[in-house]
């Protein structure tokens, strides 16, 4: 009992310290949580013979709750109506984004001689930008007030939907071993369960509404958790992505009149468990493995960072922004984070070769820092883009 409490206590102490460092040096917290996890975990501190933070059962469950709450919040803020209202612009920018970046990741995986499944995971890892890091940077830099926030946030919403569908399909593929028939059966179950969840999300709004009507803060928190967590657990037991299940529960709650209250009450809970998830990822990661994949990692960064810049730039142009603002859209979308790590955790859970998770962790560390840096130094990016567009396509600019 005391040992478990001490382990969790150490975990939160490390997180608090990493968060303080992040604020001090002006970096995003996500990479620092992960790095802190690597340093205090069995692979670094443990190897050096120092006391280390073990990946206990409690921390694993906390991390799992972090994934569930992250996706629940995506669902909560996901509005089908909003997507439909701006479908042409968000749809075009979103399709461009997924059309460029996802196949690029899959292609790179195949080029490295990875299996089809590993390559499919790499596609997801390089495609999905980090809502957490990007949204925070938008607010910190004051870009939320400017027109570039619309294509950026719009693209993120589109990505959320894609990643929900992606995880729904990929999870049973990764978690199942066995032959083709068994896998096909699991995918079938997954699709049925997800369809059921989608129906529940649509029809459940009235139930959720009455569940939360006229109840006070604590009861709201408990009832939301009392619905979300069991549904996610049941989904996982059926071999369906718990994250996607949580996403659909979030969508169901999004239709109620209680969204703002839920957000206010559960945001700090989500942040704490998400931090535990990032630490958990760090604890699991052996830096030696990242060094082993350094070459493919460098290639992936060198290819996918410019690709995101370009797809983001044209996404901004689809929204009718000028070159300067479009360049910012590209810079903003570079940061990858929590979702790439969720895919990495899935790879580990499914027993795939360690190189997938190791590359994902290394990739997120690089891209989260690169992304925040590009946003902070956007003036440089803008100058480069303006020079290129002046020289390259004088007529297409206007």
């Amino acid at each position, binding site marked *: 009992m005391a040992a478990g409490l001490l382990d969790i206590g150490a975990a939160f102490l490390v997180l608090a310290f990493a968060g303080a460092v992040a604020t001090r040096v002006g970096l995003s917290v996500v990479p620092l949580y992960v790095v802190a996890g690597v340093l205090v975990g069995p692979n670094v501190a443990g190897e050096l013979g120092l006391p280390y933070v073990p990946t206990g059962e409690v921390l694993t469950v906390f991390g799992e709750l972090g994934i569930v709450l992250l996706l629940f919040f995506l669902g909560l803020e996901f509005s089908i109506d909003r997507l439909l209202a701006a479908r042409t612009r968000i749809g075009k920018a979103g399709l461009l984004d997924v059309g460029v970046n996802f196949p690029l990741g899959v292609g790179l995986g195949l080029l490295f001689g990875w299996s089809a499944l590993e390559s499919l995971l790499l596609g997801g890892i390089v495609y999905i930008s980090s809502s957490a890091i990007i949204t925070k940077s938008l607010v910190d830099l004051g870009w*939320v007030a400017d027109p570039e926030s619309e294509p950026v946030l719009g693209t993120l*919403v589109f990505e959320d939907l894609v990643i929900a569908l992606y995880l729904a399909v990929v999870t049973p593929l990764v978690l199942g071993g066995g032959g083709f028939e068994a896998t096909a059966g699991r995918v079938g179950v997954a699709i049925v369960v997800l369809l059921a969840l989608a129906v529940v999300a649509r029809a459940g709004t009235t139930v959720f509404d009455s569940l939360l009507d006229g109840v006070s803060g604590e009861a709201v928190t408990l009832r939301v958790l009392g619905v979300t967590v069991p549904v996610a657990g049941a989904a996982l037991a059926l071999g369906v992505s718990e994250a996607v299940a949580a996403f659909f529960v979030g969508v169901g709650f999004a239709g109620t009149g209680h969204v703002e209250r839920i957000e206010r009450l559960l945001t700090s809970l989500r942040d704490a468990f998400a931090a535990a998830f990032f630490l958990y990822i760090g604890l699991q990661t052996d830096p030696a493995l990242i060094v082993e994949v350094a070459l493919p990692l460098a290639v992936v960064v060198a290819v996918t960072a410019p690709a995101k810049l370009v797809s983001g730039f044209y996404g901004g142009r689809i929204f009718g922004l000028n070159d300067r603002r479009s360049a910012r859209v590209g810079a903003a979308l570079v940061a990858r984070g929590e979702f790439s790590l969720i895919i990495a955790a899935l790879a580990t859970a499914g027993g795939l070769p360690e190189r997938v998770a190791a590359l994902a962790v290394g990739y997120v560390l690089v891209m989260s820092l690169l992304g925040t840096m590009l946003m902070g130094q956007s003036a440089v990016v803008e100058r480069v883009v303006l020079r290129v567009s002046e020289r390259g396509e004088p007529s297409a600019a206007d």
Partner: protein
Amino acid sequence: MTVYESDLPGVGKKHEIELDDGSRLVVVTHNTGKREVFRREDPDADSEKLFELPDSMARQVGTILEGAYFQPVRTDLMETVLEGDTVLEWVGIDDDDPIAGKTLAESGVRQRTGATVIAIQRSGEAITNPGADTRVEPGDTLIVIGSREQCQDFESEVSGD
């Protein structure tokens, strides 16, 4: 005045208010309740953050802007513009004003200025369409109609300036 509203998924809501000089006031309301207020000089400029307020303070400042605590209206000299140059003006009468104690006819103010008294507010009541023999008393508020210039003349006439 045009107000543009847009959603900021994961952040909150944004309202942009077009100002007379072509710049825009941008109010970002976070899901946490925090308000950030920016000003954007022109469409190409970057928004400059003016200030931010927590929820409760933003509401309080809002009611001040709304005029719930103080209305910048001078009750003794309020004017309303009708079509063209015609204005309605409220003129308060003090003890020492020359017109106090005289009837409208005696004061001859209409002949001299051209502005007409169409009503008199006296101790909570209104005397509409007062006749020439209606006596003006200190504390009255005269409601006057005329051109802007006539009303100005009227005002200086009754106060004896």
